[in-house]
């Protein structure tokens, strides 16, 4: 009898604990691989918050806003750019961005925001837009370093901030960042 009572009490409570507690909002990172990284997709859609391999990206060219590439000789190192940036001789094959019919262009501007300040920004904040300096924006985020906060504007006018949280140099390297958009 006592065991039954205990079960009757505990089971509903466990159910309440599992279902009732509000889930913490996830704040995932995006990782993109450079051109020779076969394991990590290198293309990214800001609006869908989704990564693509180059082959997948070629089939969804209109959705692609950012890719990662590596180029040591020019000092770009691990860098971010977009299909419309005109960057050549990095990717090869039929699916390379040069061959795409739609090439979105994203512009980047390196802000002076710190990682801590980035954490205070929420999606939709006006600060995301005002951090973007149109006059000084470039078609690539060159030599991305951990802790840097870059403002960007996509082809469709979405503004964003990205905080680089990890960088591995090399043609098979990666960059990991977190994004806020407006």
């Amino acid at each position, binding site marked *: 009898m006592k065991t039954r009572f205990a079960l009757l009490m505990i089971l509903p409570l466990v159910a309440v604990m599992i279902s009732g507690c509000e889930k913490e909002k996830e704040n995932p990172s995006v990782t993109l691989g450079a051109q020779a990284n076969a394991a990590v997709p290198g293309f990214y859609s800001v609006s869908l918050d989704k990564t693509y391999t180059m082959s997948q990206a070629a089939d969804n060219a209109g959705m692609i806003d950012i890719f990662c590439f590596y180029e040591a000789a020019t000092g770009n190192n691990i860098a971010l750019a977009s299909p419309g940036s005109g960057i050549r001789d990095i990717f090869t094959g039929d699916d390379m961005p040069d061959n795409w019919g739609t090439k979105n262009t994203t512009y980047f501007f390196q802000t002076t925001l710190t990682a801590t300040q980035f954490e205070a920004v929420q999606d*939709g904040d006006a*600060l995301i837009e005002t951090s973007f300096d149109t006059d000084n924006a470039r078609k690539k985020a060159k030599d991305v370093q951990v802790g840097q906060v870059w403002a960007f504007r996509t082809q469709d006018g979405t503004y964003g901030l990205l905080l680089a949280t990890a960088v591995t140099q090399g043609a098979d390297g990666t960059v990991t960042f977190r994004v806020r958009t407006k």
Partner: protein
Amino acid sequence: MAKRIQCFALLIIIALAGCVKDNPGTTPLILLKSGGAFTADGSAVAPGGALRFGLSVSGGGGAITNLVVKRISDGVAVIEADKGMYISYGGLDTTLIYTRGYGQTERWVFSVMNSYRDTASVSLTVLKGAGSAWGEISHHQSIRIGLQENTSLPHFVDLHAGIAYDATGVTGHESEVDMAAFWYLTSGTSSPTLTCPAYSSALTYYPLFGSWSAKNQTMYDYYTSDNNLVTPAQFDLATNDSLLVNAYRPGSVSGQSKFAYTGKVVPFRTADGKYGLLRVIRADETPEGEMEIAVKIQK
């Protein structure tokens, strides 16, 4: 049985404790905008010159609930603005315009608070430039308006242009209206009173404000008015905005100013940051009466 109840209560407490949400632990972010459109840290501005501060604020995980602007002129602090708000999405992006005072150095401190009562601030210093830069003013010599039950005169005043609109004509001009006036008895004392569309109790006398999407908040300096710190003669002599700016005491302002009797001079600041002086030429003390004012306001 008592033990079972205790056991049950204990389990509930444990279950609820597991659901307590942690404070996100982020603080708001407030940044001063840079660029030619804004006053830079360390810049020199002559007394009377315009100061433009661009602020970008993020709530840091909470809603933005308060913005305080403090001017510290040669060590003397004055709260220029203390605005309550509740901005839960989109942050705050605003430009504040003030006028450089006479102090050798002015330090401006902008502070925000979020709904977790976390705060952040940013500051800059503006040095004193040579000469003076007091600006031009507009002078509207006579604006006649009706008090709340007056049916023959217009009620809604654009202090910038010196125009008064009636209830019909104001359509499309709501965002230009800075002032209205009414009369009432306050604690038994007769009070011709200045108000503005954003002041909540103005709705009692002008329900039309409730339907306006743009409701300007004009702040009146009641202390200067109550204590007659600016005389009608001084008002008449003002030829630039020096008196308009310096008479205004931001520590004693409200969206409503009582006791606006004939002869009173009331400093004010409009929603878009223009300083001005309002002289009451005539104020009736009945709800059906009228008020005639003269206005000097920064161009």
